[in-house]
């Protein structure tokens, strides 16, 4: 058992007599020092009553050591200790709480399905987080329950948020193979390349074709005799033409930084931005530096640069460059892989009230093939009626 020690202040003229008395009575002195004309001794707490027997000294207990002192310190700092314990409990509680569940997928149906599944398994807002093992188990359960919908999923705890990544299972629809079909032209143009795996090509390179012309026939001939009917497959690249009308303003505004800048703190919560300090610059551009995130609120250090809007007019060269980029932009959404713009030619150009109206002839390399089914008429020997 741990002993309790006391610090006792002794007022005594004769040290030798006191020490001899201590020895006779049986008081063990564990430490002794002289301070301010008084002796400070360390003795066991149970020896204090024995000091009364030394009549010629005055003594005073000035402190404790051991368990009693620890208890006294705890008693003295109990508010602080309770606060520390409480804050640790709150921290533990908050670090194990879910504040939001985010399912990363473009389909709303999938998102709702996953959220419902997770809610059934106690993964929802204001619920406690699950361990890695439990998350793995839940993940497997959900995948097993929805084998036709979910291909893969991952659940992870990110701070106070649960992030779920899902991959949808895409089942290939069984399609009935077409029996007889031609590949026809969906636009008029000049054939530039042709490739086919089934059927018989009726056109060749540099042939001009009109809309609806058969490019690859589904009827196979041998020595002018019809041998077989298949569904023709292939792709035909042709040069097609477009006439594009564009209009754009010749004047534009450019932002120019004045050199004046201000620092601020930006608070972003649910895409709503607010600033900690009032902004003294009226028109500005900002550069954000992410600091930290707490409770779905992102904090940024923002530098606001003051700007002046300058009015400018395009030169002819700049206007043509802009025209090029506008045409590229317009066709980029329409053109697929291996398709490209071959040439551009301005047909008409006129400026009216600061607005440039342009008519451009654009030649494009494009896939013009389209599959079209046909039905054979019984008794028709040629068999190309559809």
């Amino acid at each position: 058992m741990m002993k309790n020690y006391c610090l006792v202040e002794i007022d005594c003229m004769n040290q030798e007599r006191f020490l001899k008395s201590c020895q006779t009575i049986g008081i063990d002195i564990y430490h002794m020092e002289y301070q301010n004309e008084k002796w400070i001794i360390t003795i066991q707490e149970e020896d204090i009553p024995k000091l009364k027997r030394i009549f010629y000294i005055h003594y005073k207990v000035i402190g404790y050591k051991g368990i009693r002192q620890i208890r006294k310190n705890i008693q003295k700092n109990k508010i602080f200790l309770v606060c520390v314990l409480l804050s640790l409990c709150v921290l533990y509680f908050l670090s194990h709480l879910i504040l939001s569940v985010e399912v990363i997928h473009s389909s709303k149906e999938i998102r709702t399905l996953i959220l419902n599944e997770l809610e059934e398994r106690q993964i929802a807002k204001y619920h406690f987080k699950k361990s890695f093992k439990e998350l793995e188990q839940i993940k497997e359960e959900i995948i097993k329950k929805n084998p036709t919908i979910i291909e893969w999923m991952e659940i992870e705890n990110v701070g106070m948020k649960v992030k779920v990544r899902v991959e949808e299972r895409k089942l290939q629809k069984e399609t009935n193979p077409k029996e007889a079909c031609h590949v026809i032209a969906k636009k008029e143009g000049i054939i530039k390349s042709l490739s086919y795996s089934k059927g018989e090509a009726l056109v060749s390179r540099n042939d001009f074709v009109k809309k609806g012309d058969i490019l690859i026939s589904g009827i196979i001939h041998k020595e002018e005799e019809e041998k077989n009917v298949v569904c023709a497959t292939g792709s035909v690249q042709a040069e097609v033409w477009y006439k594009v009308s564009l209009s754009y303003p010749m004047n534009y505004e450019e932002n120019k930084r004045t050199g004046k800048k201000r620092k601020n703190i930006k608070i972003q919560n649910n895409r709503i931005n607010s600033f900690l300090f009032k902004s003294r610059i009226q028109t500005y551009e900002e550069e954000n530096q992410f600091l930290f995130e707490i409770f779905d609120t992102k904090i940024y250090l923002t530098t606001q640069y003051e700007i002046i809007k300058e009015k400018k007019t395009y030169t002819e060269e700049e206007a043509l460059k802009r025209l090029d980029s506008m045409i590229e932009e317009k066709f980029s959404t329409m053109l697929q892989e291996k398709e490209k713009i071959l040439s551009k030619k301005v047909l008409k150009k006129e400026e009216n009230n600061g607005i440039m109206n342009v008519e451009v002839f654009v030649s494009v390399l494009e896939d013009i093939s389209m599959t079209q089914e046909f039905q054979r008429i019984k008794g028709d020997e040629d068999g190309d009626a559809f």
Partner: protein
Amino acid sequence: MHLYKTIKNFLLDKDYFINIFETQIHIYGFLEVLCLQEEEASFQFENFMLQVKGQNFRVLKLTRNEVLIQGKIKEMTFL
């Protein structure tokens, strides 16, 4: 406590010992303190008496049969 006493008896199996350091003297196993003054300290052992002389003697620790004295030790006499 019994275990502690057994270990202590095993380690301190001598009747007495005197350790002298540069500014301290540690005496174990005396029977009685005869004198404890600033310039002199004497202790009664079973078969002899120890007298220590010096300057600025201060008792740091004192139990029934053990004492630790700090100070400048000049002379030690066994009587």
